[in-house]
């Protein structure tokens, strides 16, 4: 068996993201991960939309399409339906997936198309040089919002859970091990997987995720384990009477009262409640990990099951019968 190494997934294209861009880390993680998983590059297709992150397919030596703004999930749907032998990835950003392509994203998720979506969320429009995005906090001052933005941002994971997604996860560009772990689970999931990746844009939104270091911080989710975090796991998540979840001191309530994370729960309510722990303004607190990972028949498998192709020699004859129809008349 030939060993596949990272280099096989490195294309000969010069990587042209800005120095320090978080995209580099994701690319490197991806290029190492794929050989580890044993997925051949000729079975790998990366479909991207438009945006900084959408340059991704250029840099991976596999099949790829740099398509149109927001449309990658639609194109990937056609491809995945046609080709069960391919690992189809969608690389998109917060503007691409949640603004112009919001419709395609939610429908790909609810259909459960067998694709893996990496959503690079830098909370800004980078490629167009710094306008606020659908994940920017209210009051964001940018070139297009000099007086501060006034619209409420999306919580991408709440959106995905609401759209009946079967695999929903979040990771960060700065944690290679976590990134690799989450992406591995995402590609293993049969159906649509959405992985939101917090990605720093040092040029137009530098430090967007820095407050996580100061505040309550990242809340790691591990299936089957109580949700605790912070120094010495002193903080934890409990369920409130109204069904929402909140952060408490573990010492106050005791470890038994802490919510145990269940990523495989068929009802998405708890995953949704956990997704609401994400700050929508300045980001001081955000759960990361796999929020939801459940089995549901994949759209493309079900589609293919309905379609059958006659043997080549029978195909035209079958078609001829159809074309001739039942009611014919003859002119001599």
């Amino acid at each position, binding site marked *: 068996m030939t060993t596949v190494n990272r280099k096989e997934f490195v294309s000969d294209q010069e990587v042209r993201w800005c120095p320090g861009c978080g995209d580099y880390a994701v690319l490197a993680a991806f290029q190492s991960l794929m050989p580890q998983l044993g997925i051949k590059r000729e079975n790998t297709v990366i479909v991207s939309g438009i945006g900084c992150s959408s340059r991704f397919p250029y840099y991976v030596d596999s099949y790829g399409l740099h398509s149109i703004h927001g449309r990658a999930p639609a194109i990937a*749907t056609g491809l995945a*339906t046609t080709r069960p032998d391919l690992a189809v990835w969608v690389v998109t950003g917060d503007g691409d997936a949640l603004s112009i392509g919001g419709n395609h994203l939610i429908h790909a998720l609810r259909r459960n198309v067998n694709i893996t979506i990496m959503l690079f969320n830098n909370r800004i429009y980078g490629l167009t040089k710094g306008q606020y995005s659908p994940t920017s906090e209210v009051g964001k001052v940018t070139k297009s919002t000099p007086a501060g933005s006034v619209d409420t941002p999306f919580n991408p994971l709440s959106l995905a859970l609401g759209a009946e997604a079967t695999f929903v996860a979040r990771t960060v560009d700065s944690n290679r091990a976590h990134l690799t772990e989450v992406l591995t689970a995402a590609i293993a999931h049969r159906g649509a997987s959405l992985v939101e990746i917090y990605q720093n844009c040092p040029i137009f939104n530098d430090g967007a995720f820095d407050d996580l270091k100061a505040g309550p911080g990242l809340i790691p989710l591990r299936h089957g384990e109580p949700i605790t975090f912070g120094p010495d796991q002193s903080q934890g998540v409990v369920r409130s009477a109204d069904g929402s979840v909140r952060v408490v001191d573990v010492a106050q309530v005791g470890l038994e009262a802490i919510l145990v994370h269940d990523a495989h729960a068929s009802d998405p309510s708890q995953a949704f409640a956990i997704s609401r722990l994400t700050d929508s303004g300045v980001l001081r607190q955000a759960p990361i990990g796999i929020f939801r990972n459940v089995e549901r028949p994949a759209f493309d498998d079900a589609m293919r099951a309905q379609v059958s192709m006659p043997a080549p020699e029978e195909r035209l004859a079958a078609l001829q019968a159809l074309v001739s129809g039942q009611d014919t008349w003859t002119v001599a």
Partner: protein
Amino acid sequence: MTNVRNIDRVVIRFAGDSGDGMQLTGDRFTADTAAIGNDFSTLPNFPAEIRAPAGTIAGVSSFQLHFADFDIRTPGDRPDVLVAMNPAALKANLRDLPRGAVIVADTHDFTTRNLAKVGYAANPLEDGSLGAFQVHALDLTGMTVGAVAAFGLGRKEASRSKNMFALGLLTWLYSRPTEGTEEFLSRKFASKPQIRDANIAAFRAGYAFGETTEAFTVRYEIAAAPMPAGTYRQISGNTALSYGLMAGAAKAGMPLYLGAYPITPASDVLHELSKAKHHGVTTFQAEDEIAAVGAALGASYGGALGVTSTSGPGVALKMETISLAVMLELPLVICDVQRAGPATGMPTKTEQADLFQVLYGRHGEAPVPVLAAQSPGDCFDIAVEAVRIALHLPHSGDSCCPTATWPTGPSRGWCRTCRRCPRSTPASPPKPTARTASSSPTCGTRSWLGLGPSPAPQAWSTGSAASRRPTRPATSPTIRTITSSWSSSAKPRSTASPPICPPWWWTTQALSGASRPTCSSSVGARPTGRSRPPCAESG
């Protein structure tokens, strides 16, 4: 005593309320007309309202049929005969009638209330306002109820057969055979013997009424039209288009993938192809028009034949993806089943106004060959041809027709093909010229039949490593718009017109037959093998 008069052509319009069964009546009359061997063309006209209030102008549904003893091309403009089942049908259609036209009106529905509903102060059948026409005011409903009394149906149920009474009368008037309709009714209502018998009785009563009444002094005969020998069927443009797409994909040995979003009047293509899953056809009802074409393009990238069907508003939304398909040189067939009007327009009305959109709708240099079908039957050939070109066309940027490369931005200097400055807009737009396969210098760079199902995706250039990938043979660009007219229930075209693209070796010989209208010569009889179609020689 009834005289028989021979005439060469007639246009009949059946009009009534949406619930009166006018489409079925027209369909049946068409089938009987086909059986006689007349040439014909039809125009169904539905109300846009799904369930318009009964008796209103908005709720009028009509079916027009033009038939003749010679070759005709259109459903006709001015009906010689109007069958009006209610005052709304009369009012909505009266202005289309020439002087002297025959009006058969069902007096039963000309009640004060119904007249008032459409703004008639007095009954036009009685006030002399129809003096320019030959009016036959008959109680069709009353006679129908009488004719079916034996079957024990309620009055409402009984009166529903009035369309068959009217059909019977017209069948007599124009000397059509009756067996076809009787067989049809027996089949259609096989599970409801009461309804079946009532309908057949009404149909026979209508026929007998014509024969016995003194109201009609003339009966007409229209001889068979000289038609090329062959086996014929009725087919709508959308059905022919669907079959053509399937035939094209089958000839190419590729699976067919349709991405579509429901849109009148193109949805029937989606419906038709959705029934063909056992022919290797995948249909995807997308979330919107853009996703529909996107998925089709994705499927093409995976080695299927990607097709999207839509109408004008959908084409507008798909333009960016069409440009992308040109750029990626992937096969794609776009079907534009045209509706009327700007913006959303009029879904149930037809127009042929999308030509400029499909020729010039894209940005940048994204030339797209455009084919237009000339008849419902021709939609089949056009679809096959579109598939052929889509899979076969060599690189599009080289020698395309002037229209397609006409620069659109003021910063562009000259169109290199026609050498006219785009700033001085030509008095008339450049003449649409479809690119022909024969003009292509490298037609046949890849074998049309050489594509196996599910080839590996085509390498998209990301550098030299592309050469190491398992790619299929260099693909050709490929994109094709079909502009088909939406018309229903007409025969395959009966005369060969100058083809927009050169006749294709097997289309003309095998599927539709050298003598056009036959659909029955076996597809399997086509030249087989993996040889290249001789398109290079055709120019």
